[in-house]
């Protein structure tokens, strides 16, 4: 059993969160419906996040970042996602995809890539999933063949968030086909302007529609050996340690989506008159709203506690990451579904934001490991098996 680390938001964290909240409310929320409808990446929002240093949050100070801890990054993701889940995901992906460079990169690799990422001049995406390797990341087929001072990358990745717009892609490929499962993968940074790299199909999605999800094709893409992150064979371990810090980001996105839906539903309930009074005066509506609030708050507190524990170096970071993503993803789905219920037929219409939030919430139960994978991680920790 792991210890709960006490946490309390610092004055600085509250100030940063409130600044992001204000930006989200005034600048990002008004664009959210259009981003969803057009299914186009909101470059203006990305520029806004860059100019306000929000994309700099997760990066070390020496590379132009703000050196924020995991909890602070999650506060920002939550605040953005309450307005627009697609925009919250811009920060979440930027943070998670750069993690292998931040945590395992050499000083030279960090110096090469992190300053541009921290300034938001470049975007990065994280490519582990393949059509035949989803939850089972150990069955990756992409090959990385060493030739002198280079690796030649061959294969395809699928479901890659920001894959079509990123300047850098972090890929996981088999570098030693003879090695045991989980020991045959290595992690590489591939610049997307290299010959042989191309974008295949772009997925048509239920939610987070402004966020491009791409198939990436690698046809004998040559990269310098210096683009490998960590040692040969260390790829699987790099990926798993990334999830320990990326899943709380998705939990924060889920909490944000839930909060956005809760606030809209409560506002609507106070305005909508039926039977001669606001529906907020109906006990059944109050019950729905109270449960939504309780679920959202529980998910939020667990996510913050998980961030604090992971940041403090808790020995069971994987469990903390999994429990918060599991609880927050389910809370977001339930709360957004109930928000649609509070609005009744209007909730089902595109002119109100809650149906978008309900569609957006679903992804938080799927990516960064499905809810079933989270349960697997939690159960393994609980039962003392690895």
């Amino acid at each position, binding site marked *: 059993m792991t210890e709960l680390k006490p946490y309390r938001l610092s004055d*600085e964290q509250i*100030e*940063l969160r409130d*600044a*992001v909240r*204000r*930006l989200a409310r005034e*600048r990002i929320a008004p664009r959210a419906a259009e981003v969803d409808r057009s299914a186009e990446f909101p470059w203006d929002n990305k520029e806004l996040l860059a*100019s*306000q*240093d*929000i994309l*700099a*949050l997760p990066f070390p100070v020496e590379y132009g970042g*703000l050196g924020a801890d995991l909890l602070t990054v999650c506060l920002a993701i939550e605040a953005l996602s309450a307005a627009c889940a697609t925009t919250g995901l811009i920060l979440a992906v930027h943070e998670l995809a750069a993690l292998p460079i931040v945590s395992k990169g050499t000083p030279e690799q960090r110096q090469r890539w992190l300053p541009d990422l921290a300034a938001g001049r470049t975007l990065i995406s994280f490519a582990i999933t393949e059509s035949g390797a989803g939850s089972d990341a150990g069955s990756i087929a992409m090959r990385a063949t060493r030739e002198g001072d280079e690796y030649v990358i061959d294969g395809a990745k699928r479901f890659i968030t920001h894959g079509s717009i990123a300047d850098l892609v972090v890929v996981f490929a088999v570098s030693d086909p003879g090695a045991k499962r989980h020991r045959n993968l290595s992690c590489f940074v591939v610049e997307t302007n290299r010959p042989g790299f191309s974008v295949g199909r772009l997925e048509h999605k239920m939610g987070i529609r402004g966020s491009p999800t791409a198939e990436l094709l690698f046809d004998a893409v040559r990269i310098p050996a210096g683009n490998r992150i960590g040692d040969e064979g260390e790829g699987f371990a790099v990926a798993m340690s990334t999830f320990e810090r990326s899943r709380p980001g998705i939990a924060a996105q889920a909490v944000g989506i839930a909060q956005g839906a809760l606030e809209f539903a409560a506002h609507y309930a106070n*305005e909508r008159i039926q039977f001669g009074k606001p529906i907020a005066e109906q006990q059944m509506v109050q019950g729905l709203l109270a449960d939504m609030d309780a679920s959202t708050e529980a998910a939020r507190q667990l996510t913050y506690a998980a961030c604090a524990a992971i940041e403090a170096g808790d020995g069971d970071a994987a469990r903390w990451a999994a429990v918060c993503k599991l609880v927050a993803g389910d809370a977001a789905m339930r709360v957004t579904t109930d928000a649609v219920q509070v609005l009744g037929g*209007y909730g089902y219409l595109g002119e109100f934001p809650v149906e978008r939030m309900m569609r957006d919430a679903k992804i938080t139960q799927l990516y960064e490991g499905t809810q079933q994978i989270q349960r697997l991680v939690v159960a393994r920790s609980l039962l003392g098996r690895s």
Partner: protein
Amino acid sequence: MRIVVLVKPVPDTTGQERLGSDLRVDRAGVPAVVNANDEYALEAALKLVEAAGEGEVILLAMAPAAAPETLRKALAMGAQRGVLVTDPALAGSDMLTTIRVLAGALRRLEYDLVIAGADTSDGGGGVVGAGLALAVGLPYLSYAAKIEPSADRVVVHRISPVGYDVIESSLPALVVATQALGEPRYPSLKGIMAARSKEIVTWSLGDLELGDLAVGGAVATTAVVEAHKPPTRAATRVIREPAAVAARQVVEFLTDRRLI
């Protein structure tokens, strides 16, 4: 280019009650924000210093002791430092005293330009800028839609009923900003973090050479005699129909009341 910007912490206008039982603004009970018009003045000052490539923006406020919390928000936008004049004796001061005290503070500062907001959302008097120019002996350039300083002159486009007047003066001078100067920026996260370590100097009345100036509510030349809540409005009717249907209903609504 050194610019002093007058900044006033005012009660958040999104709050509920704003007057205390003595009919004075309840500064303790309502969270304070930077007066919105002062943010336009600050934005103009920041742009001028950025364009000049050198210099600094100094905030000047006369406010209760808790004001640094609010001034940090203005520092986060990019001002370099703040000066706060605070003294328990100043509570309840009128605009005349405010002018005299701020004039005392300005005499202690070096600057090329003072920029003030058009008015404040709490008192709403709108005369402190003009009075301060008079008290310190600065040229007064009001209602600026554009501010163009040169080495020792400043040209201002002053909004007029038919367009604008081009007025010019020597430096230092006092300019009253308008919203036509441009939207204030959002503080960046780096700005917010940097603001935590920026200097806010606190001066009390004793630090200013004001002689035996009487201050505070007891000598105020103005007083709030009565305050009334605005009359409650009739119930709002919200029309949630497609545009074509909604437009017809709006027209019917207005026609019924002989408004169109």
